[in-house]
């Protein structure tokens, strides 16, 4: 028997199909998640070089990333990366936890790092260049250290050797009671100390030569408002240290590359960017004098760290 399709049946079928489509619209697909693995895509070991916070992170990267890139280019079976730190405390916490593979600490941090197993393989910069400077506004009227009495002085950190310990020793030597005659403000970084004096938050900003040279390049107008009031005597420059578990081969290649940086034009450009004259051969023994200086400072001025 021939069945007839009625218009009503056809319309009902069409609406039914549409309803099925409608019901399918409500279902949602699960969002795709990122894919995670436990191993890095690149198997080459990465050695992290932690620079003491002589600059804020951006400036630090601008100054030191060329060195990292150079090392990565020259040393094929190792990769190096740069690690900044928000402040000196953070930096010191890191090396005490032995997380960085390489360190570029100031002389005081060098002797501290030795305690946790880091070893000096080179000195960064000429020893005579390692001295603290006192920056004042040109319109401040401050001419001698005694003028600082009752005023605020900005430092990057209480553990900064050239930018704090040595200047406070300088003030102490010039009859200023660092602990009572002035207000010590530790503002976290070299640039912060400079900006504090420029912004008249303090009477004097204390830093050391490389950051001051960098600031003059980056902010010539602001720098023109400032002047170096006094300099401390030099002590010894920063070191470059490696953790004692670093493969000897990498350690040797690294030391060799650092020491011959000054031999090439490219190396000299890298050194200039870091406001570092050159890398000199050095060992832990070269920094014994720092330990002596700190001992004197702590005995006469204050403990470097509040323990």
């Amino acid at each position, binding site marked *: 028997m*021939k069945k*007839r*399709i009625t*218009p009503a049946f*056809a*319309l009902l079928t*069409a*609406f039914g199909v*549409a*309803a099925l*489509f*409608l019901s399918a*619209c*409500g279902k*949602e*697909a*699960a*969002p*795709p*998640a*990122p*894919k*995670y*693995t*436990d*191993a*890095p*895509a*690149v198997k080459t070991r*990465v050695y*992290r070089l932690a620079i003491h916070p002589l600059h*804020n*992170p*951006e*400036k*630090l*990267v*601008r100054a030191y*990333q060329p060195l990292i890139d150079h090392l990565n280019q020259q040393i094929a079976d190792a990769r190096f*990366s*740069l*690690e*900044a*730190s*928000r402040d000196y405390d*953070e930096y010191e916490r*890191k090396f005490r936890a032995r*997380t960085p593979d390489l360190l570029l600490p100031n002389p005081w941090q060098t002797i501290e790092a030795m305690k946790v197993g880091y070893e000096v393989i080179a000195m960064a910069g000429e020893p005579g260049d390692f001295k603290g400077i006192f920056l004042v506004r040109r319109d401040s009227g401050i001419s001698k250290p005694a003028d600082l009495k009752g005023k605020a002085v900005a430092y990057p950190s209480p553990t900064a050797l050239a930018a704090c310990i040595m200047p406070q020793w300088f003030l102490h030597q010039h009859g200023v009671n660092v602990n009572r005659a002035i207000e010590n403000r530790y503002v976290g970084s070299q640039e912060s100390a400079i900006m504090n004096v420029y912004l008249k938050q303090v009477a004097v900003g204390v830093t050391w030569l490389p950051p001051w040279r960098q600031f003059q390049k980056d902010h010539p107008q602001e720098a023109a408002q400032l002047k170096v009031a006094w300099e401390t005597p030099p002590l010894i420059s920063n070191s470059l240290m490696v953790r004692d578990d670093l493969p000897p081969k990498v350690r040797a290649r690294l030391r060799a590359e650092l020491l011959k940086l000054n031999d090439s034009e490219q190396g000299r450009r890298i050194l200039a960017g870091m406001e570092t004259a050159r890398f000199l051969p050095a060992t832990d023994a070269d920094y014994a004098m720092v330990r002596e200086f700190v001992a004197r400072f702590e005995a006469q001025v204050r403990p470097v760290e509040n323990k």
Partner: protein
Amino acid sequence: MRLREFFSGSLRRQLIFGVAAVHAVMMTLFVWDLTIRQQDMLLDHQSEQAQTLAQTMATSAAGWLAARDIAGLQELAEAQRRYPQLVFAMLLDPDGKVLAHTDRTRQGQYVQNIPQVAKLTLLVHGSALVDAIAPAMLADHTVGWARVGIGQQEASKKLAAITRNGILYALAAMAIGSILALFMANRLTRKLYVMRRVSDTVRAGHQEARVPDLGDDEAGQLARDFNAMLNALSSSEKRFTNIVNLAADAIISVNEEQRILIFNQSAERIFGYTSAEMLGQPLDRLLPAHLAGAHRAHVRSFAAEPETARDVNRRAEIHGRRKDGTEFPAEANISKVKENGNIQFTVFLRDISARKQAEEEIRQLNVNLERRVLERTIELHAANQELEAFSYSVSHDLRAPLRSIDGFSQAVLEDYADKLDDQGKDYLGRVRGATQRMGHLIDDMLALSRVTRAEMRRETVDLSALAADVFAELQKGEPLRRVDWHIESGLAAEGDARLLRVALVNMLGNAWKFTSKTANAKIEFGAASAPDTGNAPIPDTPGTPETQGAPDFAPSFFVRDNGAGYDMSYADKLFGAFQRLHLLSDFPGTGIGLATVQRIIHRHGGRVWAEGAVGKGATFYFNL
């Protein structure tokens, strides 16, 4: 196929489904477009948000990433939890190591799909997730990555709601449109269905059925046109039926199976069957049994050939068989018409029994007639020969005594002149004149006889030259006469030169004679190209049907003079033998000349006639 029939089976269905389909297509396109636009808009919005968030995170975290401050980075990552629909937020080192993550269990793991180029990138841009990654840059160096994933669940829900609502609206529009289409289709096609019912009724045989008045719209107009068409069809059908029934021939239509579809009244009369008896019957019933097979074959061959009509008798004489079993000869034509793939043959058949009988009778009559004509011809020939022999004999035999009379009369006048007084001499002179005239008369009669008997030798004759020659002879006979002759040059005709010369000699001689007493005599020979009917020509054989009043399209020649002329009331005597209209003393002659002319012209198949008036000359026309 059934589905196709269903959708296109009627205008009503086509209209309903057409409107529903238009609604469905339009609304589907609308909903689809709306959904796509909304989806794109939501995705773009989410993408912008994800990229902005990733970029902000990267900027914020750059310093901490450089310092590898895990705790700070984790705080930063977890701070993003407040962001609605956030699926994950993570901060990575340059190698893709997870330094901070909203899911802390992911810390220390690696993600693989880090972009090769340090730029803001959308890793996933789907309907469920927008995954954006932004490089954290310090001094143009990548110190890490910030990556965020924002879920699309809310957006998907909104989108699904929009789609669902759109489909509901579309379905509602389709339903409403279909219902409206149903009403509209019913209303629009109602009148068509009325017309269709009428059409079915007419087809069922009720020729008088007509569509009622359906208003003034297109359907109403169509209904009126439909009725007009039915009226015209009905009239045509009646005319056709009348023509078929009134036709003298039998008209029989058969289908391809050669079964009878039309059997008109003449067919009933010729074959003796009624139409009711023959409709649907095989054509073989109307054929002699021994011819039926051949006839079927002929019809089949005709069906296969391209010609549309055929004279059946062209191939063989055909015969029909009446209801009483008698056979009759017939003449028929057959034609074919292809209609709806079927061929219909129509035969026009005529009973030619009577004609056949009449033809036989005529044939017998012709045989008898021919026999009788032959007999009469033989009789006439014998009589004619006898008559001519007699005429010749009489003429010849009469000449001898005439010569004796004339000769002896002359001898008396010469030998006995002194013995005769003047009166005697006058009498003898008259005897001689009479005998000489009789001699001329006999000569003319012999000439007339020769004209009738002489054998015709047709050739092209230069009539102008002939006339000039005759004129020269006449002038030579009477050198002192001055006649103004005019002979049209170049006149020629097909005929016997000798006989035509005799005819011209007589006609020109008459003109010469009858102008002898006319000052400034003028004779003309020429041709008239058009028939001269306006001047009431005198027929040469008045009262004979072959000449009287019949237009003459052959070139006519004429001989015209300005001589004595004649009285038209005696015109019927002009061409009779021995008939004279003038006194012999005035114009000599025997009265044979024009009779001779007429015979010569008749022997050439032409005719001759004249016109004239007493004292005003005469014109003799002839053609050949």
